[in-house]
């Protein structure tokens, strides 16, 4: 009984403090523009490359959760023609995954901040509920980074991304950016138009993170087939840190939960 009280009053707060510190660290990685004043967020450049072939090269500039510059060089395999396109000056592309992850982390921090040292936990279930809420936010944050959205090709084609480049993207090229774990990925799809008379039976491809050559889709009354897929990626170090922080804090949460449930099993009556 005494020990449980101690756990609730001292240990829980110690863990919560620890959690808060970790998460604040994590949230700093996301370089949150403080209070909407998006001035001093530093920009980071990342060079994208594939091992072996150098068909696609690119330099991306990441500012917080937004891609503010992108330079992509694409070597066409057929005629060795070199294509170059970049973001228009006035546009930037929000990486939804980073934004969501950041928001989830901030939610988790907010939950923890509400229960600072002055707050007295009275029952174990209270802590369990708080931990569940925090863990939910954390696992969502992690999932947002680890599982990129599965998009269909028409969705990629219709997204605003295609309109952001200068010179404008040729109609037979699609691009998509996403985060996978700690990596920022760029996929470039080369398409060729399917003639309506072709004997190939048309089967539209479903949603996927990465479409394979041969995937077909219909967009704007025109049928396309993916002929080449290029994927380039680069590691973003701070994303890696963030993921590690998530994992660590999730474990902390679970440990705290376990500690509390141990007590409940010793007392046969309802402790919560």
């Amino acid at each position: 009984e005494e020990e449980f009280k101690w756990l609730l009053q001292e240990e829980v707060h110690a863990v919560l403090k620890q959690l808060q510190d970790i998460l604040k660290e994590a949230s700093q990685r996301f370089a949150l523009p403080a209070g909407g004043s998006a001035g001093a967020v530093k920009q980071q450049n990342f060079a994208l490359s594939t091992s072996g072939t150098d068909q696609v090269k690119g330099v991306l500039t990441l500012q917080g959760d937004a891609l503010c510059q992108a330079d992509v060089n694409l070597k066409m395999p057929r005629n060795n023609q070199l294509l170059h396109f970049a973001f228009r000056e006035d546009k930037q592309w929000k990486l939804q995954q980073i934004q969501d992850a950041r928001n989830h982390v901030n939610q988790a921090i907010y939950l923890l901040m509400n229960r600072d040292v002055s707050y007295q936990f009275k029952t174990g279930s209270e802590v369990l509920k708080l931990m569940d809420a925090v863990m939910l936010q954390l696992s969502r944050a992690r999932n947002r980074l680890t599982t990129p959205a599965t998009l269909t090709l028409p969705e990629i084609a219709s997204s605003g991304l295609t309109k952001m480049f200068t010179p404008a993207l040729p109609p037979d090229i699609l691009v998509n950016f996403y985060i996978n774990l700690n990596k920022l990925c760029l996929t470039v799809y080369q398409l060729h138009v399917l003639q309506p008379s072709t004997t190939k039976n048309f089967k539209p491809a479903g949603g996927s993170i990465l479409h394979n050559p041969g995937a077909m889709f219909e967009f704007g009354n025109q049928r396309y087939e993916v002929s080449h897929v290029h994927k380039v990626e680069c590691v973003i170090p701070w994303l890696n840190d963030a993921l590690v922080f998530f994992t660590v804090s999730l474990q902390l949460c679970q440990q705290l939960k376990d500690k509390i449930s141990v007590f409940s099993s010793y007392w046969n009556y309802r402790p919560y």
Partner: protein
Amino acid sequence: MKVSVQAVAVWGKIAPSHSVTAIMITDDQQTIVTGSQEGQICLWDLSSELKISSKEILFGHTASVTCLAKAREFEKQPYVVSATENGEMCVWNVTSGQCIENAKLPYRHTAIYYYHCSFRMTGEGWLLCCGEYQDVLIIDAKTLGVLHTLSSSQYSDWINCMCIVHSVRIQEDSLVAVSVTGVLKVWDLSSSLNSIQERQSVCEKESKSLDCINCQAVRFCTYTERLLLVVSSTCWQVYDYCDFSLLCTEFCKSGQCFAGGEVLAAYRLIIWTEDGHSYIYQLLNRWAQMGNSHKKFSGLSKSIYPADGKVLKETVYPHLLCFTGVKENKSFPFVMGFMNERKEPFYKVLFSGEASGRITLWHVPDVPVSTFDGSPKEIPITATWTLQDNFDEHHSMSEGIIDHLCASKDGIKSAVVSSSVYIPSLDKLVCGCENGKIFVTLGLKTARARLLENVSLLKDYLPYKVLNGHSSRVTCLLYPHDKSVRFDPSWLLSGGQDSVVICWDIFTGSIIHQFDLQSGPVTELLRFPENYRLKDHSIVCCVCSDHSVAILHLQKRVCLLHARKHLFPVKKIKFDPVENLLIVGCEDESVYIWEIETGTLERHETGETAKVILTSIEDSEYLVADALLPVSQESKRNKNAGYKHSSSYKHGMVSYSLTHTEKSSDKLTDTSCIQQPFTILPVKTKWNNANFHILLFDVEKLEELLLSSQLSGLKSSNSFHNSDTLERVKSTTEKRVLTLKRNKIAGSISPVDGQVDTVCSNQVCRDKNAARPLEESGGMKRHKKMKSSRKIRMQPSGNIDVTVTSDTAKLLLSCLLPWGVDKEIDNLCVRHLDILRLQCPVSFGLVSSENHLSLMLPGWKCTDCGVLEERAVINLFSKRVIDLSNKYLAAAEGQTGEKDGPENNDYGTKGLETVFFLFSRIALINRIINIPSAVTGKSRYYSMDFGSVSLLKLICCWSDQSIKIIEAMQAVLLAEVQMAMNTLRKTTICSDPLAIVENGNGKLQTLPKTEERDLQYIKNVSLLFSALKHDKSSNSANFQDVEDTPDRCVLEESESPGERHLKTITKYQVP
């Protein structure tokens, strides 16, 4: 989806936990709707005096409820939409508890607003949603499909809060929203209606970064049409809506967080905090203040000023008028809301819900004023209530299903059931208790004993066994034979908090083996997949609370493997039969692979690889058979487990939960036609250990069964001696006879058949109880035999069905009848139809489409029909029922007048027949109301059945009038019983003189009367059974019956000579 299932809830003493996460009051101020972390939605009655009482609880969501909102114009349709943590959305009818529509979208909403623009919009309106996604979603209020999004051109981010601004001044509806980063955005609604309908992208009209993070609420002042209130967790601010300039800021006290606010009146605000306090502020005008030192009505003086921004600016400052608080500073987070209604009889109500499940109301006066010395005044709490209060108040209703057993046993306070399982094949209910005891009883009998009145006999003779073995709470139970035959039918497994798994012999109650796991409470017991390589081995999987998984071999009585390395709770257990591997998926999405033979951890994977492993195994397993064991930790049994799912509603994590429960139980009633139209569904709730049970009656099935049993009853009695089945019955009944030798009537009941059984069911119940031990052993034998020959097993079970079904039907009828409306009806039912009086009102449930269920809570009736008459009326669902039944009666009489009611004469003839008839009516109504479309097509068929098209029409229009199905059923039942009684009365009047002459005693007039009526049943029975013996038995059964009814003179009864009966019987037998 089976719609013919009727559910009756048997609650326990402890209310299910309900941590309020969302709360709202409907527009008519009659219902409070709360959503909980457990995933249920609770409906509370709010009386005009602001008294709260719980009404219904709605099941269907599998995750924590995040927000609630109205989903239609409330005057037209009382619909409310709920959204959950995992993206489920559901539209409920809050008057009937029905689920109207549900959907699962990949969005988590935190706020929903209903928007409808009647003259420019088609359809039912929109739900404007915001949450953990960018910008605002527009969802169709009817289909719950995503219509469109309101997107933003820059700073697109999650929206924290929003409000709809109806401005008369500019004739434009707009949506004001604040994002997580504190950017305020305004979208036009009415002027962009067209572009939304044509799916053009709609961008915000204005966007301005406010200097506030963690915005909690934004509100527009409709009184001034000028001010905008923005509440963030640290402060609240007032902006000028015209140019979004900041007018004033007020910070909160340290240690508090603002959670929301609302505009009370012009220049008057109410702000509330996360810990349940609220503050009412008056915005004072500094200039007016100077002239008039203490002027409250600065709002008035304000309007004199030319309302331009410059004047407003820097002239407004807040003054605290009133505040509300909770008595003891409870540490739970609060969810609050405010309802602003000025017109009578509505109130201004501030309401809050706590994580503990408490609801509190404050009635805010129309003109809040501070105390005379200028200090703020406290507004007292008007009402406060919890679910538990209701459970305590209606004590008898909230009695657990086996509470009476425990109480009768040793006088100690009854143990709380902590886990239970129902075994349909044996009709056994196994309940594990808090104190480590396990009770094994008969399901139907227990339910009868719990629900019905005057069945002290039933209670006393209710056979049950207590298994003692656990030292602390029984956490889980498993009857493995249920699904796979390779388990011995006598095995029952129980896991306790003491980390012990015991394998019991369910028939003898002895311990077969005890596994001591030493790894914390056992949380889960699971059957192993069918196609395990060592097929005939009986293996069970066991999950403990230290996240370890143990594999127990029941036959060898050893623990094959105890996998202990898991850091996170176990979510999935899969099995690779080829490699003989155990694959354990944890909550953090890591995977552990164990080798079963050696017990070593082979691999540990996380991330993508883990996912791949889990999914690949799934595929391979599917190819083989349905061998995989997709176990979600929360849903107690897996999908293939079939019959019973005790499910726990757990916050946050995706679980199969009730969805599966319902699905499977419905499947059960669908497929297992021979066995059970009646099942008991144990339900487990998360945070506290309160368990309750739901009795499910499949009306259609019951009707079918009754019909077939009647037919077979006729048949079998005709071919009495050559029927194999009957011989079997005979032998079993002869067994009973042996035990009943000391009983006088023993000899006479030997050839008891289902039909007789029901006439003298009181007696039979006794028989059965007495015969129980024998039957049980017989049952065991039967099961032993069953392995060799299945046929034999089927037959006896078919026979038992006859009594079981009729008992079940009667139980359901008892539950449906409004007792106490008419004494005569009550008596009639009890005496002749053997429908027994209820002990207390019954909590009915409504199974609506797609596995959604609403259950009435104890105390549902108190507001509705508290003072009907002086007589104690139990179980009347609403006052409307009586009106309805009168209407029905009128319609029926008008109709039968022409036909001279040949039908009606039938009613009174046979007890069972009447029961059956009533039941078929119920089934019919059930069908009609549930499938209104089918009625028109099939109306001819129905009218044949029903005898009258007008009745049919009447009922059809009921279903249009949103009359609850339960009300309709009760009304029709009441009317039918009344009719049946009328015909009975007629017949008894004819025979009355005779009876009086014979008896010569005025006092006992009722006695012969009823006996006459009894005799009529007997007549029929005796017509069926040509042997005179049977009549004797049923006569004596009648005596028994009469003895049991309290208003009888027992002496007279016993004196009355049997000859008379015999005479009359033989008289009747002549034709």
